[in-house]
């Protein structure tokens, strides 16, 4: 491949900067590497992409997991360049392409707001759009605004094949103008951000499977791919159904929950469009058990924990369902640092009532907000600043558990992950 000299030099400089950053103990150096490369060669992303980018994955929730599932499924055809750390802005994309196997197909996770720019510069074969919901409103766009930006992006890039969730009306509004589109009925558990039509503001009519707008006549597009999820008495089953009616059993996925099976269905639809063997794709996706620390079991101080990450009400609401049933206690850590969003008012949008019957260890720098939320939800709660300290005042029931679920916002999650004594069982 013919990368312009300027970009090659810029990447070299970026690698030096990344190495220096690693030596200084400041992490893996991807952001700094990508930043330096882009400074020196503003078209670095375009130069590096040149037809290599197979897929971009964007959504409010599940970007990192879906990207991992798809990249793993596609590895059947050889090495894939894909970031492993959730660095999902322009710098991260540059870095994944610059450091991945030379010439390898790339699968990139992309931040919702950066998607238009990265689509334009990388001209990917497919773009996966899974869901849009409220997220960190102190610094991010409101949902409808983001959807309008995606809509313009799609109109301006008609050659790109869009794979989109037909069950999320906001995603449909964003994607419906695509020239080439594959609709997936990937489900939508969180409907609070799509109660009204993003175009005309009319309250949407919903039933079990479909939705429609009586104001402008917009309806749920007929999906090519379907997804079935059943949960009965703690047992779950998931099936993806292809446009030709072929069924793929996703029950052996190692990643838990409805949302991950839904992510796998989106990934499978992408594999199909990109010409991969689908049974092999399912088999490979089933080998993914932890994604950048999510669902990993780690030793943190005196406790062995299963790490769960959620950043917003839609994510939390699905996470509550994969926790073990009452009375098993759980740890919930809420931070409000920059990367978490400064305003945890969204705690009041999460159905924490579902945790009733167990003790919640409330921690993180916004543990007092959580304690009041749980007080109102009539959920028993113990506020502990550092539950992993050897002398932490924890209930007996917590100490007795082999592994305790610890659900955390981004910075709390990262802190445990980085500070952990190593993954016990990844």
């Amino acid at each position, binding site marked *: 491949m013919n990368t312009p000299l300027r970009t090659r030099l810029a990447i070299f400089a970026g690698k030096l900067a990344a190495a220096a950053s690693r030596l200084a103990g400041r992490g893996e150096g991807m952001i700094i590497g990508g930043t330096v490369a882009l400074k020196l060669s503003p078209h670095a992303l375009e130069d590096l992409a040149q037809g290599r980018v197979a897929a971009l994955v964007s959504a409010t929730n599940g970007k990192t997991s879906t990207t991992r599932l798809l990249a793993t499924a596609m590895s059947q055809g050889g090495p894939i360049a894909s970031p492993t750390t959730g660095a999902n802005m322009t710098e991260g994309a540059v870095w994944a392409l610059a450091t991945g196997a030379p010439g390898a197909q790339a699968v990139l996770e992309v931040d919702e707001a950066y998607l238009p720019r990265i689509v334009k510069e990388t001209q990917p074969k497919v773009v996966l759009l899974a869901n849009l919901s409220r997220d960190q409103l102190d610094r991010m766009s409101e949902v409808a605004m983001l959807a309008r930006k995606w809509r313009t992006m799609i109109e301006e890039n008609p050659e790109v094949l869009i794979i989109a969730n037909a069950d999320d009306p906001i995603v449909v509004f964003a994607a419906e103008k695509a020239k080439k589109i594959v609709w997936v009925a990937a489900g939508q558990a969180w409907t609070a951000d799509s109660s009204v039509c993003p175009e005309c503001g009319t309250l949407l009519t919903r039933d079990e499977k479909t939705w429609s707008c009586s104001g402008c006549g917009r309806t749920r597009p007929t999906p090519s791919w379907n997804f079935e999820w059943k949960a009965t008495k703690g047992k779950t089953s998931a099936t993806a159904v292809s446009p030709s009616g072929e069924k793929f059993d996703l029950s052996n996925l190692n990643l838990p929950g409805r949302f991950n099976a839904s992510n796998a269905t989106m990934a499978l639809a992408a594999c199909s469009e990109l010409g991969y063997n689908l049974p092999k794709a399912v088999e490979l996706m089933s080998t993914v058990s932890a994604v950048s620390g999510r669902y990993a079991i780690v030793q943190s101080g005196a406790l062995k924990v299963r790490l769960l990450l959620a950043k917003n009400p839609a994510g939390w609401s699905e996470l509550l369902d994969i926790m073990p049933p009452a009375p098993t206690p759980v740890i919930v850590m809420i931070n409000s640092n920059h990367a978490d969003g400064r305003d945890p008012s969204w705690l009041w949008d999460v159905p924490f009532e579902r945790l009733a019957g167990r003790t919640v260890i409330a921690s993180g720098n916004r543990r*007092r907000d959580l*304690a009041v939320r749980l007080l*109102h939800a009539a959920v028993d709660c113990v506020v502990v600043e550092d539950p992993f300290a050897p002398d932490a005042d924890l209930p007996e029931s917590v100490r007795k558990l082999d592994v305790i679920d610890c659900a955390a916002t981004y910075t709390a999650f990262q802190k445990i992950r980085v500070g952990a004594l190593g993954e016990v069982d990844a």
Partner: protein
Amino acid sequence: MSKTVKIASIYPTLLGTYGDGGNVAALRHIAALHSITVSVDEISPGQKVPANADIYVLGGGEDTAQSAAAAALHASGALAEGVKNGAAVLSICAGYQILGHTFLDAEGKPSAGLGLLDVTTDRLEKRAVGELVAHPLSSGPAGISAVLTGYENHGGFTHLGSGVEPFASVTSGIGNGDGTTEGAINGRVIGTYLHGPCLVRNPQVAEQLLSWAVDRKLEHIVEAEVEALRRERLDFVSKSR
């Protein structure tokens, strides 16, 4: 004493983006502490807004949703009738702007509010995002004396007319946008930019609304968890200044 207080949560699907559903949860919770029975009606657009509620609650929302809510409330007329009947109203952010004469829609064009508060809203130069601390005025409702704490996230500059009093005076944050006042009040109708949610972090406001509804004074009940949260938030603001 055994009166059931009727709470109407107005269009929470449109006006509830910033956790404002917590205000209704707080009313329920605090009413229970005072042994007051409440019924909560969650009104979706298309459903009839009751004119006989004791307390109406409106939260914040995105621009498109705000316009949809304003249009539906105009068509209904029930909120104005409720206020005439002596009901109390708590309106937050986009909900507050709707109660005024005009607010700006998604395209920046003025659209008509309900005119229940003598205020008009246009744009702040820079969006107001962050912790908001304000002191209730001594001329305000008797039950609200403690400092108010919350989180604001809005682009609206709300100008107060002569028919309202400020709800509070800002000590940290932006509030209405004039540098001093936060929110507006006229009789039992309150508008404010306090999310947090407002009634969770300021239980006295909830008690005042309930007190109007049951027509008797309520002694403030202190809950340790809530006090700890208030203290922590107020400390955070004074330390970061």
